[in-house]
């Protein structure tokens, strides 16, 4: 039987506010345990929450970024359950009236085509603390630094049909929130976490299968692998005559499998009710307009502009708009060198290769966009040829050239890489090479005319060598062809 996978994602994005969602404590990552937990975060008797306006603004920016409906009123609810790292015995969240309503996210697939994934809603909530099980001699330590950190939970419709689509969606969310600057998107530090709802159904069937929810998957790769495992498990189960039960599962990256945490029967009754300590959040249209005006260009718009205005391919436009840092780097490079295609080729080719090799993020690139732009400019204006440009790139990468924006020029100068375009000089070199290669000239002459094109490479190589790589290869080629053909 043919099976179809149905996937919905709940993505928890940690908002990049200075302080917590309901208290003035810092949200900075990595502090000593419990040094960023005040009376409110500890849930001491008598404390009250006060909503952080910045968290509201960020949630609304996200809503605008996915063209979502923004309700005039949203309400915080309490989700009640006991857990040691949940100080109040409830999590303040939004169950019934979330801050962001229905919206849409466009995802880009490998073949360059786009699909729209619907977002059901996004709501604000507070994060819990952390339970630490090591170093406490059989006891558990509680660190409440993270308790109260603002989260935006983005809940998709079950619109994805493959692990690849789910990853593409997650990447799209990642790029939207980082473009907006509302999250650092750092998955390793838990700034973006994801619950994956997976079910399978026979292809063509309308009704959804029973789903399993895989909790807390925290990398793009794990999302893909967890789904792959889960789909296989469910299909095997059904084909063996079994039934999928609604349950919560955990993905174990070490074993590369999902395991049951609790079934629906064991699920908590969270006893949601409106939090009486917080007033409903009223959002007026003037505030929305103000936020809308300050919205940056988002990935989908950028991608469209790169294609339409800069003439880039869908693929190039997609890659170059995938992150704000990448897009900004590319645009700066393009502005400096004045050629979008050259800039795109260099950023995706030489630069991305080097970044991958050294496992660096583009924001940590040793070559800045101005330097790369200046280098490309020298290729475009024929000061250097492509081969020399790669040498200059490597030298820049190694920190040569003094680090100024025009470092490329310094390297070109120091290494004498300036391209020789003086026809007389090239002419002389070409004559010399022909004179020094009688055997090759004879072969050339004896070959069929349509085979000669390939044979010319030898002569070009010799001339380039003689010029120490500085001759303009185009000119060399033309001259050689002229002179050799004259000998035939």
């Amino acid at each position: 039987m043919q099976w179809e996978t149905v996937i919905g994602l709940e993505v928890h994005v940690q908002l990049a506010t200075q302080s917590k969602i309901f208290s003035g404590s810092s949200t900075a990552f990595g502090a000593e345990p419990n040094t960023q937990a005040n009376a409110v975060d500890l849930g001491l008797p008598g404390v009250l929450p006060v909503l952080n306006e910045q968290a509201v603004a960020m949630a609304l920016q996200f809503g605008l970024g996915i063209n979502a409906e923004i309700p005039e009123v949203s309400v915080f609810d309490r989700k009640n359950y006991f857990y040691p790292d949940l100080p109040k015995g409830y999590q303040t969240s939004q169950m019934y009236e979330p801050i962001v309503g229905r919206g849409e996210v466009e995802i880009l697939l490998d073949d360059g085509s786009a699909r729209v994934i619907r977002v059901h809603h996004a709501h604000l909530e507070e994060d819990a603390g952390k339970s630490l099980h090591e170093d406490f001699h059989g006891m558990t330590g509680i660190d409440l630094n993270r308790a109260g950190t603002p989260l935006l939970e983005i809940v998709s419709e079950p619109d994805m049909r493959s692990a690849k689509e789910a990853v593409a969606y997650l990447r799209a969310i990642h790029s939207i929130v980082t473009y907006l600057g509302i999250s650092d998107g750092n998955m390793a530090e838990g700034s973006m976490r994801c619950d994956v709802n997976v079910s399978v159904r026979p292809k063509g069937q309308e009704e959804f299968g029973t789903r399993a929810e895989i909790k807390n998957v925290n990398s793009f790769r794990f999302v893909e692998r967890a789904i792959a495992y889960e789909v296989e498990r469910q299909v095997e189960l059904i084909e063996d005559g079994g039934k999928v039960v609604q349950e919560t599962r955990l993905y174990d990256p070490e074993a590369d499998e999902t395991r049951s945490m609790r079934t629906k029967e064991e699920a908590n009754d969270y006893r949601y009710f409106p939090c009486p300590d917080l007033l409903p959040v009223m959002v007026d249209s003037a505030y929305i307009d103000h936020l809308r005006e300050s919205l940056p260009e988002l990935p989908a718009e950028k991608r469209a502009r790169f294609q339409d205005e800069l003439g880039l391919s869908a693929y190039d436009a997609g890659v170059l708009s995938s992150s704000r840092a990448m897009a900004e780097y590319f645009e700066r490079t393009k502005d400096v060198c004045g050629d979008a295609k050259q800039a795109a080729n260099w950023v995706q080719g030489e630069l991305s290769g080097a970044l991958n090799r050294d496992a660096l993020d583009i924001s940590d690139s040793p070559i800045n966009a101005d330097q790369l732009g200046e280098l490309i400019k020298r290729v475009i204006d024929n000061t250097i040829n492509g081969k020399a440009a790669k040498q200059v790139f490597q030298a820049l990468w190694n920190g040569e050239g003094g680090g100024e924006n025009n470092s490329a020029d310094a390297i070109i100068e120091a290494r004498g890489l300036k391209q020789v375009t003086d026809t007389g000089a090239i002419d002389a070199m070409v004559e010399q090479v022909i004179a020094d290669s009688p055997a090759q000239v004879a072969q050339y002459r004896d070959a069929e005319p349509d085979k000669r094109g390939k044979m010319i490479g030898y002569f070009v190589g010799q001339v380039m060598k003689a010029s120490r790589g500085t001759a303009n290869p185009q000119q060399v080629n033309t001259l050689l062809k002229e002179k050799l053909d004259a000998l035939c």
Partner: protein
Amino acid sequence: MHDKTITEIAGALAAGTISSRELTQDLLGRIDRMDGQLNSFITVTAEQALSAADHADQQRANGQAGPLTGVPLAIKDIFCTQGVKTSCGSKMLDNFIAPYDATVVSKLRAAGTVSLGKTNMDEFAMGSSNENSFYGPVKNPWDLTAVPGGSSGGSAAAVAAGLVPAALGTDTGGSIRQPAAFCGITGLKPTYGRVSRYGMVAYASSLDQGGPMARSAADCGLLLNAIAGHDARDSTSVARVVPDYTEELDAPLAGLKIGLPREYFGDGLDPSVESAIRDAIKVFESLGASVREVSLPHTSYAIPAYYVIAPAEASSNLSRYDGVRFGHRCDNPSDLIDLYKRSRAEGFGDEVKRRILIGTHTLSEGFFDAYYKKAQQVRRLIRQDFLDAFEEVDVLMGPAAPTPAFDLGATKDPVSMYLQDIYTIAINLAGIPGISVPAGFSGKRPVGLQILGTHFAEARLLNVAHQFQQATDWHLRRPEIAEENA
């Protein structure tokens, strides 16, 4: 000075006839001698009180005294006080030393008042007799065999017995007004949002409100001046200008329109209470007020609605007492669940457990709509009843409680206890202010008249109550125990 009002004490302090230290020492002595019988204090902070009194005297010497500088008072043990045990009447918080001051506590401190300590109360403010305290019941100073009312029973008894001229209380369903009535003092529950709840241990967040308990309406006004106002740390506190609540006290009542809710004079009202209340109404008529009957048609739903909403909020508010970070923790827990179960089973008393169970049930899946949502709808109707009534009349009047103070140990059935709040509870659901003033006696035991106004009508209520106190002397009566120990 033990039987004087704040107004009189402030005058004596200003005139230099007594210092705050002398007064504080005198009252601490009374607490020492008398509170063994009354049990109105959980914690007496003598040392801090004397140093605060010295500081107040110093401020006065420097010419920096305000209207409350050097005035002693007490604070219900539901308000967090930095460095001082804040038990909320519970074993659960018997070991809890608050690391911060509630907003009203710091406001009172800033106003120069001198706190003598923390008063007894029903555990987590759940009760109408003060019999639900981990620290034992409080006795009514008028009759030591009677309850003082609750939950702010310690505050009411301490003021009535002349241990302090005033005290802070809290009122979720009548917890200021009913004990004020039982102990023959004046107690004001402000409009919800008028006084910050920050640092006030939560029972039912949408109903809880702190307020003053004192010997006169004028004193309540002075205290409200100090504690009212918006607090950035309490989102439910209202950003509205705080008037001078003493300014309108002397306005004449001629033309005042008084409504008597039919439902507040029905079955279950003790005849001696009714007759005292009817007499009090006559006083107002003699002051030029007109009286008419009005109806609050949804009154009978107030107690059921309250006992859905308040326990629901309480069940969630009290989840933080889990033995993990503060408060009572059981010995040698075998695992996490054991830690939760035994810490909570040992730390909470029966009434608290009962309300947690009720609240947990009413919020459960499948019951939420039938209970919680329905109760919220009823709440809106009850609020509307009052708003409609205030279209017709300026204030409403009636008894604060259906009976005078009852005997200690007499009311064992929780539902009969809940019915004690039949005239006070709807006020919290509606969010309006109410004041209870002494209006006579039923035998040895005082009777309280309740006066209700629309939202933020505190100045009007204080004015009406003050005028009554100018015309009567019920509020000047003192129990024997107070005079014996003079």
